[in-house]
């Protein structure tokens, strides 16, 4: 059962669309009634807490994570593989948007909040502000996709309840909740409703939830972007994260990227990057995780791009580790291209 990474591929590719990830999660839940989680699993299930702590003193964390003896110690004591590149932790970032008629709630996951504040977080905020939106950044708790994947549904509930309370007033005012992270979006739009039944407040939030690429592209189709795009002359490859693919969104991210003039988007035979959220961080899975990703790495290397785009923090880590290329969030690039005075 541990081999099911909850990538959601069955939801799109299985001829009978059997919800294998769902049944595997429930089976894991049952299995862990008797068997407790390993230290690595406990750490990885609480990624937000760990990230939050690490980013209070980002310099110290970053030096520690790039120092081999310390990493060996971490590996020994926790089971997190010392070869695994970890993202740099950024200083925590606060922002307040000016009031506007049009509002969105921006749900930025751990990756945007603690690692890629300069990229994913700031650019997502900026692009909406350029479009005339007031960006609301509520205090949130982890979406708990990792806990759910490990079958630890019970302990995910308090955080989910907390988030429901925070988000409910917005959902009730029909303010869209926009997800920059593929996995947080997957948790809200796919996972919760499977395991939590009869919570009408949660259902309201799920209904208000939209993936950022999907939302932006529908704005583009409505003509909201007008024609103010600067060319970006770069050769890039786009990797679709598993948790975005299985969201059943209306539009593809590539549609959105094709808006950017000058962009050379090289088509590849895309496949799983192998990290599967926290799976590839564990010592026992590191090699398998890199092996799963090897097909994608070869595809990317053959395409010889300057950088890779992908809207998932852990895919970014893995592809960077596998190819050495810079991997950024698509919205980061889109915002660079989109010019409108703030």
């Amino acid at each position: 059962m541990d081999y099911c990474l909850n990538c959601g591929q069955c939801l799109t590719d299985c001829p009978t669309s059997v919800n294998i990830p769902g049944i595997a999660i429930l089976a894991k839940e049952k299995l862990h009634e008797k068997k407790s989680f390993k230290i690595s699993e406990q750490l990885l299930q609480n990624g937000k807490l760990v990230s939050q702590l690490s980013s209070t003193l980002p310099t110290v964390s970053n030096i520690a994570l790039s120092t081999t003896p310390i990493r060996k110690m971490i590996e020994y004591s926790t089971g997190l593989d010392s070869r695994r590149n970890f993202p740099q932790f950024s200083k925590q970032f606060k922002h307040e948007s000016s009031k506007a008629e049009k509002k969105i709630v921006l749900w930025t996951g751990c990756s945007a909040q603690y690692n890629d504040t300069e990229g994913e977080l700031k650019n997502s905020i900026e692009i909406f502000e350029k479009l005339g939106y007031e960006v609301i950044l509520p205090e949130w708790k982890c979406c708990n996709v990792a806990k759910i994947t490990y079958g630890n549904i019970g302990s995910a509930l308090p955080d989910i309840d907390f988030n429901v309370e925070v988000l409910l007033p917005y959902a009730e005012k029909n303010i869209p909740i926009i997800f920059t992270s593929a996995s947080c979006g997957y948790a809200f739009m796919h996972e919760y409703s499977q395991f939590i039944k009869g919570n009408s407040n949660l259902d309201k939030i799920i209904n208000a939830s939209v993936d950022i690429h999907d939302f932006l592209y529908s704005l583009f189709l409505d003509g909201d972007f007008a024609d103010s795009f600067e060319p970006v002359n770069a050769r890039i490859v786009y990797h679709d994260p598993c948790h975005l693919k299985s969201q059943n969104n209306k539009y593809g991210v590539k549609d959105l990227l094709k808006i950017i003039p000058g962009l050379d988007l090289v088509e590849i035979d895309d496949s799983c990057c192998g990290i599967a959220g926290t799976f590839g961080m564990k010592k026992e899975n590191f090699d398998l995780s890199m092996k799963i990703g090897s097909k994608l790495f070869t595809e990317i290397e053959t395409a010889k791009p300057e950088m890779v785009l992908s809207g998932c923090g852990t895919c970014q880590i893995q592809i960077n580790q596998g190819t050495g290329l810079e991997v950024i969030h698509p919205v980061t690039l889109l915002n660079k291209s989109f010019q409108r005075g703030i």
Partner: protein
Amino acid sequence: MNNKTYNNIWQDELKQSLGSKVSWDVVTLQLYSTAACFYEISPLAVVIPENVDDIVNVINICREHKVPVLPRGAGSSLAGNSVAEAVVLDLTHHFGNIEILGDNKVKSGVGVVLNHLQDRLKVDNKKFAPDPSSGNVCVIGGMLGNNSGGPHTLKHGNMYKHVDEVSIVLSNGKIFKAQNILLNEIVKLDDFHRPYYKKVKSLLESYSVSIDEGRTFTTKSATGYQVWDILTDTHLNMASLLVGSEGTLGVFTDAVLKVISKSPKRGVISFYFNEIENMGKAVQHLRSLGASAIEFVDHSFIELALSFKPELKKFLPEHVRYLLYVEFEGNSLDEINLKFSDAIETLINKEQLAEVGAYSTDEAEILEIFKIRKAATVILNKIPGQEKPVPFIEDASIHPDIFPKFLVDVSNLLNKYSFKYVVFGHAGDGNLHIRPLLDFKDDKTYKAVEEFMDNFVELVIAYNGSLTGEHGDGRLRTPYLQKRFPKLYPLFEEIKLLFDPERIMNPDIIVPTNKYQWNENLRYTPEYKHTLTNSGIDGSNWINEIEKCHGCGTCREYCPVFIATGEEEATARAKANILEE
């Protein structure tokens, strides 16, 4: 099946000889207890052999202790060909070599996935002709075992026509090379091979009348041992004889396959019919016009597609009851367009049999044309509720000249039992894939099906058809083989005894050691009950999810973990299999 007990010495010996390559923990046994079929039988052990020596060792130990052995490929067979109370050899981990031999031949290990072979051949603009729809997961070993076909069997014939040489480990532990050889070269064979060739030749000669008389009136068949057309005035084709033996004569390790050049161009044209008789006549004309594939769906299939996807209505007029998709291959677009106009001239203008639908020589447009067909196959497997498309009369083939009449008779039979069903298949070969929608857990249905099956078999025999065109006999049709081939059955027995005198190789199939009924060892019967686990999975919607998995094995193509590890336990169907228990 009889509950035979075996002493445990064989287990010790297997462990000693193969170490971690053999396992019999409950989880592994459960994973290999099913395939894409609706049977479920726990194997005795599972071995992942790394090389031919491992296979020989397993066979020697098993022969010594009279323990059955079952070679297995991707487990994508539908008729129970790859589940048995036996030591299962999973040959898909290794045996993956592809060696291009030149002269339009390729040597392939039995573990090679068909599409991987095709990808390799594509580089040289070649292809392997048999093309089952499971090509994304099925392996060469399974295709050899089942004498596989596909839409292009119409033009190229089943698997046995495309095999030049097969290596097989026999139950005596020796490696036998089966070839197509000149009769006068039999005497030159070594002392090990010669007696087999001589014996087969003399058997085929002494049964020659029965072989001729027992020939089915079909253009495509994968039933019994392949005893037809292998002994000519000049040659004995031992390789073809072994194709379709479903693991009952030994374990294939590799084969020399014949490859063909890809046609430079192709085009697809569709025709709409209101009357089945007209479709039947059209198929005859299209065959003589040299179509490379003639596929059909009937109104049940069309209705199913439209009920779930009304937007497809624009692709066809409302009154259509039968739809033919016809493919022509050629060297140039002109050549294909000429064939299109020939077909239209004959079917529409001259004979007034049909309406012409969409046609194209553009690959993207061809995909559009196939939309209804594709949508329905997907929808078929997603029908909500307890009634599922059950593959138990799924592969009969009747000569294309008479199959429309057969189709009418089958429809009447299905209606008599009030079974809902859908029909599609390879019209050019009269090969029908009929899927009644049934719930085998329902007592009344289960009993009705038992009677229905006997009637269906009678009907196929009355048309002198084959019970299987391309899927093989398996546990589904083996019980009817003696009735189907009364005069040839003794020959099948003799062939079995020649190659496997100890009867340890897949002993339930084709010539079973012990008689049984087709509906024994089914996964779902009225007695089936989900064992409560006291977990979230006990919810009826989750049980439905688990039971929805019919084990087709497509997850072997897309599951990222399976792709990397090649282990059955990594697949999605493995999860459903374990939880189904």
